């Protein structure tokens, strides 16, 4: 890559769809479904039968207002629905009821990214591959399942304030944590209740203008989002470096192959012929509706982050981590509440050691209880347990659950007593005579081998710092 390409900065905006956790669909009384048999949650309205009419779900509006307020948006005094017209089998009416130029809310901010707009709309149905072609001539058949059709969606569009794929991932995690706290959605990317598309362009570093943007659709995990954005930015930079121009197009990122492909789908070059939906009347949020939405908002992640810093002395970095990852934050606060251990130490343990053990899992997917972790940390603080041994106990707690004291007793992981330690150190010094010689001659690094030997012999039940001290005492005695 030439040096000029490196001086291009990425400009990213995100378009997010959130499936709301209401009991019924956006415009009819059918229940929402999760992986059920096809077409068992439908009615003439969500099937688009002739003569049927939509009626707006009050709770969906309430959730929409909650999202708008949580994102600091300005709620429109009056917003209307529009018809977005196109033909596709997953769209029974031949139009989607959405919002266009007078949406529910505009102009908010979450963290360092501004929100352009928030609006309500209905989800499309699902197309699945048919088992046989049967009556359909030519290529293959698909089957339309209308269970999902009509599910309430909130669409959130950001300003192009994001300047790196990592920032996009981090911010999307913050959005997810924020929405999860409000309870309006499961916001699960793998299940499709949180969907993110990215708008990507590049521009010469420091310039204010915007380059041609491409759209990256339907990346269904945080990691794929970041990698997809990385791949697209690289592609655009390469294109420009080679003297080419970025073309406006819609792309799909294949996480397996890491490649980008152009999407020739319903999304391409469409004139949606938006016009105001005549079957629905405007939404004009009253004082009572706004108050109810405001009061329904719990403490949101950014507020939580600030409070953890302020009240529990958690360092800013970790407080942010607990805010962005609300399950982790919940676990932390539960641990603090369960056992009055040192909050800062607990935070460290969770942010570092527990996170390492969790991998991709959420705390509630494992067996560890917040109280158990709190007691574990207490044992370390109280000198009953060495740090290394504690890490081993942590692993057991995560995998099998249980109580730390019991595990320590069962496995004999209690801290090595002074006498036992003296004996082991003696043995180690004897076994590592040349290391001892090196230390006496001023090569302090050689102590590592002896410490290692002691730690192995104690099976990690000694405190590394204490071991070093004893060794030095013996050597220099």
């Amino acid at each position: 890559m030439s040096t000029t390409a490196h001086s291009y900065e990425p400009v990213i905006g995100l378009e997010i769809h959130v499936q709301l956790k209401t009991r019924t669909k956006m415009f009819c009384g059918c229940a929402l479904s999760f992986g059920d048999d096809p077409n068992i949650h439908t009615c003439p309205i969500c099937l688009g039968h002739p003569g049927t009419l939509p009626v707006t779900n009050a709770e969906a509006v309430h959730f929409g207002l909650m999202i708008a307020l949580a994102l600091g948006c300005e709620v429109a005094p009056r917003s209307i629905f529009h018809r977005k017209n196109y033909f596709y089998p997953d769209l029974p009416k031949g139009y989607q009821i959405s919002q266009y130029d007078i949406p529910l809310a505009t102009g908010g901010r979450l963290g360092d990214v501004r929100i352009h707009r928030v609006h309500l709309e209905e989800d499309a149905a699902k197309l699945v591959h048919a088992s046989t072609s049967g009556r359909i001539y030519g290529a293959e058949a698909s089957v339309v399942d209308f269970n999902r059709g009509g599910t309430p969606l909130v669409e959130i569009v950001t300003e192009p304030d994001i300047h790196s794929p990592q920032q996009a991932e981090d911010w999307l995690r913050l959005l997810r944590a924020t929405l999860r706290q409000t309870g309006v959605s499961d916001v699960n990317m793998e299940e499709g209740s949180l969907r993110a598309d990215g708008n990507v362009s590049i521009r010469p570093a420091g310039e204010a203008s915007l380059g041609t943007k491409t759209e990256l659709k339907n990346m269904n995990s945080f990691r794929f989002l970041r990698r997809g954005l990385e791949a697209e930015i690289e592609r655009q930079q390469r294109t420009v470096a080679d003297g080419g121009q970025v073309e406006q197009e819609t792309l799909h990122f294949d996480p397996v192959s890491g490649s980008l492909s152009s999407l020739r789908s319903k999304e391409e070059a469409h004139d949606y012929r938006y016009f105001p939906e005549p079957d629905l009347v405007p939404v004009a949020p009253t004082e009572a509706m706004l108050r109810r939405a405001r009061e329904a908002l719990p403490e949101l992640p950014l507020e939580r982050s600030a409070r953890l810093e302020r009240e529990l002395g958690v360092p800013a970095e970790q407080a942010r981590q607990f805010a962005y990852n609300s399950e982790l934050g919940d676990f932390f606060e539960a641990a603090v509440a369960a056992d009055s251990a040192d909050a800062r130490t607990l935070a460290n343990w969770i942010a570092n050691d527990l996170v390492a053990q969790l991998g991709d899992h959420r705390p509630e997917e494992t067996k560890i209880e917040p109280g158990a972790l709190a007691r574990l940390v207490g044992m370390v603080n109280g000198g009953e347990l060495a740090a290394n041994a504690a890490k081993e106990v942590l692993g057991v707690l995560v995998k099998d659950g249980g109580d730390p004291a019991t595990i320590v007793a069962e496995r004999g992981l209690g801290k090595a007593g002074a006498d036992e330690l003296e004996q082991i150190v003696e043995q180690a010094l004897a076994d590592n005579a040349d290391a001892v010689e090196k230390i006496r001659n001023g090569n302090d690094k050689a102590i590592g081998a002896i410490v290692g030997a002691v730690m192995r012999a104690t099976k990690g039940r000694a405190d590394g710092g204490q071991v070093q001290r004893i060794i030095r005492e013996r050597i220099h005695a």
Partner: protein
Amino acid sequence: MSSELSGILDHIEKINELDLDDVAPTSHVVTLENVLRPDEPRPSWPRERVLEAAPDAGDGGFRVPSPGG
């Protein structure tokens, strides 16, 4: 058909003679707002009934040619 359509459009274009700059468009003649439905589930339709009118049903759903890739 196209000559008929252009004849119709010619007539319709007479609305261009009007001065409509300060006029708000009417998208709804009723002055209702906030007509909202409680979030109460109502029984969905049995699938057999739903698929009864379908010209081509199968696999529990409505069959269509697969959209082009």
